[in-house]
């Protein structure tokens, strides 16, 4: 049976790799064509003046939208391939023997690469806690996984460069490690809903999938379709607003309200960020131009962390397994950590 199917399988594999190679080539060509094409459309085809506000805004928009969408597709594909090598089950096994401290560090890092959707936060929480992973370590994972997500990191990279993207990832890791560790030290196990401790999962059943490279590529393709399909409109709208601000608002106009001198700007930015959860992809381009117009980087980073990491829908979901005092502590510790990071960056940069 296997010998019969293998020739056709390797044939379809060859086709797959050729398609993949062509896709990469097309991606590279498209990526290098965006800038001249955007300029050509704005200044030649539409005949806009190069130094006009409107011309600048249009060129900015025509350049940034395809750039970000291309970067998103490419990077989400690459990250999704990496993620096919990880699963919550494998991560749980890796975290099994770890103590607090080392466990928090591992949990936060695994939070980046493990596939995670906030709709699975509850079964994941139960699965971790029930297998004996300390509460604080579990929280380190639950903070890192949604905060350091591919869409946010790619957009930061595309709009701000690798330094800011790196700063964001590093800050997210530190916050996840520290907040998880602090919550663990507070010994709040009794504020986990009682039913969680009574659950006994069916230890016998596990699904060990053997994935081929064709499977991994197909899964990565599907997740590109799903993620880009979900966020593209936010990206376009966000960049359109950003382009408008870029062309029309004068430099340094925001320095007095969003600059490093205004001490209250960080906590206010964090508060405003909480309800904006689902619009992270749209907020980042706007934040980008705000920085250009005088907002300080610390305030901007704190705002983005709050938009992405502090999510009300996730709080509602987690309420199923966490009693109020623990839920409030969980969010409070993250919020304070984000605010302190905001001040720190405003101070050192």
């Amino acid at each position, binding site marked *: 049976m296997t010998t019969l199917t293998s020739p056709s399988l390797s044939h379809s594999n060859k086709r797959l790799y050729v398609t993949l190679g062509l896709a990469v080539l097309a991606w590279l060509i498209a990526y290098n064509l965006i800038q001249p094409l955007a300029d050509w459309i704005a200044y030649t085809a539409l005949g806009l003046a190069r130094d006009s506000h409107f011309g600048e805004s249009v060129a900015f928009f025509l350049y940034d939208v395809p750039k970000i969408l291309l970067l998103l597709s490419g990077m989400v594909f690459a990250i999704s391939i990496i993620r096919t090598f990880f699963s919550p089950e494998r991560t749980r096994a890796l975290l099994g023997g770890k103590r607090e401290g080392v466990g928090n560090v591992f949990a936060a890092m695994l939070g980046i690469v493990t596939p995670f959707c906030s709709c699975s936060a509850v*079964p994941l929480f139960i699965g971790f806690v029930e297998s004996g992973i300390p509460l604080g370590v579990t929280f380190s994972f639950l903070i890192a996984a949604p905060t350091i997500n591919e869409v946010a990191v790619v957009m930061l990279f595309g709009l701000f460069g690798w330094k800011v993207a790196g700063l964001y990832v590093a800050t997210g890791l530190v916050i996840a490690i520290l907040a998880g560790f602090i919550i663990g030290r507070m010994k709040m196990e009794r504020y986990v809903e009682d039913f969680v401790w009574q659950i006994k999962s069916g230890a016998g059943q596990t699904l060990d999938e053997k994935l081929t490279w064709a499977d991994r590529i197909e899964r990565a393709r599907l997740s590109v379709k799903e993620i880009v399909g979900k966020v593209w409109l936010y990206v376009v709208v966000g960049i359109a607003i950003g382009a408008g601000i870029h062309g029309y608002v004068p430099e340094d106009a925001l320095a007095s309200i969003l600059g490093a001198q205004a001490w209250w700007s960080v906590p206010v930015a964090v508060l405003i960020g909480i309800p904006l959860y689902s619009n992270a992809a749209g907020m980042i381009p706007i934040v980008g131009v705000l920085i250009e117009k005088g907002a300080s980087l610390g305030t901007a980073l704190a705002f983005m962390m709050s938009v992405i990491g502090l999510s009300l829908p996730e709080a509602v979901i987690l309420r199923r397994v966490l009693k109020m005092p623990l839920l409030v502590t969980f969010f409070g510790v993250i919020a304070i950590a984000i605010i302190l990071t905001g001040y720190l960056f405003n101070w050192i940069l």
Partner: protein
Amino acid sequence: MLTIKVLGSGCANCKRVEQIAHKVVDELGIEAEIVKVTEYPEIMKYNVMSTPGLVVNEKLVSYGRIPTLAEVTTWLADALQAA
């Protein structure tokens, strides 16, 4: 008669998996009961940490993603043969 369980607490992806299961059952013209399992203690019995999960005749076949029509067709056909 197959028993198909969709594990997950009502997220959008869980509904998609349920629709796919319905479609395959209709296409194959088989008798099957499709059950939605939404309570966490029940979901955890299948050792699933990422929803949606799919269980055919008490055997876990997929979790954490939306399986394709072709995959579900294979699993249901396998389960029918085994039964």
